[in-house]
């Protein structure tokens, strides 16, 4: 199946969103979504166009206990999680400024969110030469969910794109984690179990400059512009 065919991607995305894509075809398409920001964007477009159908169904007030169960389900509360994260980044920035200002810096911080039952998480912050955060990467090691947020990140040139790579342990080939957003946008994806296993043992993350749409080969084809090892705090 030729995944470079945009019409095929459109059709598969429509079926995926509708729910009629099943089994092996669905798993392969989900892997494609993981690998390609462009495919995810096609899926999102279908979602936004089809989901409004749901509004045709009449509302039904849920029973009171439903909210009680939701509230119980989100406990324990996570007060101060945001502040704790900022503390970690502030500490890391103090360490990173010594490492040279010419390139964008990347640090991956292993942190465990309180309470103890929370999932282990990687956080990576790309900073520019002025130590201003431009990209924030968060990965949940239990679920394989990765969220990338751009914080005033400059876009690449019109015919180029910044692509994010995971560097697995043992010198294995880099694996794409998709294109980096620009401006104030964000992306999210779920890694396959195989990729998640690699991430757990990864040496770090890197960013390369690729043609628009990302590397055509599945490996970096352009210069690796940012890279850093894993740090643990």
């Amino acid at each position: 199946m030729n995944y470079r065919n945009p019409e095929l991607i459109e059709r598969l995305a429509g079926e995926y969103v509708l729910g009629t894509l099943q089994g092996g075809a669905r798993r392969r398409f989900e892997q494609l979504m993981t690998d390609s920001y462009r495919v995810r964007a096609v899926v999102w477009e279908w979602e936004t166009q089809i989901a409004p159908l749901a509004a045709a169904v009449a509302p039904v007030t849920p029973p009171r206990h439903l909210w009680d169960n939701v509230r119980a389900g989100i406990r324990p509360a996570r007060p101060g999680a945001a502040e704790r994260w900022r503390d970690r980044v502030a500490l890391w920035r103090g360490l990173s400024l010594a490492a040279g200002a010419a390139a964008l810096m990347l640090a991956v911080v292993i942190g465990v969110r309180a309470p103890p039952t929370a999932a282990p998480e990687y956080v990576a912050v790309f900073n520019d030469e002025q130590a201003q955060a431009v990209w924030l990467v968060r990965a949940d090691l239990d679920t394989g969910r990765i969220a990338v947020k751009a914080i005033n990140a400059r876009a690449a040139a019109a015919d180029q794109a910044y692509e994010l790579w995971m560097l697995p342990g043992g010198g294995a080939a880099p694996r794409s984690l998709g294109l980096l957003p620009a401006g104030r946008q964000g992306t999210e994806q779920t890694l396959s179990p195989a990729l998640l296993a690699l991430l757990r043992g990864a040496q770090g993350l890197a960013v390369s400059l690729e043609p628009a749409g990302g590397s055509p080969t599945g490996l970096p084809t352009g210069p690796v512009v940012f890279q850093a090892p894993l740090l643990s705090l």
Partner: protein
Amino acid sequence: MEQDKLVGLIQATARGDEAAFQRLYEETAPRLFGFCLRLLKRRDWAEEVMQEFYVKIWHRASDYHAERGAVLTWMYTVLRYQALDRLRAQKPTETLDGNGAESLPQDGPDALGLVLAGDMARHLRGCLEQLSDNHRTSITLAFFEGLTHEQLTERLAVPLGTIKSWIRRGLLSLRRCLEQ
């Protein structure tokens, strides 16, 4: 509730604001629960999926971004995937057709018990109406009942290849119309 207010509530939820999350729940739960019930038929399943869904929204509120559409659109989407996963995980004997079903719609595009008016985007409604009956029926059954290809062949009593073709062509026509 306007989109701007919902965006504010989602962002506050992402910062861990429980009061905002509760307001978000109050604003969105009736519509989402109605839709969830429609898909799952069984109230116990619908309540379980709703609870899991809102807990997920609490933890993943920061996933929302503008490319996912309006806040409510995104929530319908996430809920729908979750409900479908639940439907597909059940053993065949437990699903649909008489086992605690709230109501079972008849076949045909007009008998699906839907109100094709009100909130639904005029453009989407117009595009759906332009589809052939077969295309519209198969797509709306897939969307509102969560039927798979195989289940559609049983419901509509046509071969699998026909169902796949109706879905494929229906989605194509829908897409072309929506792009205009």
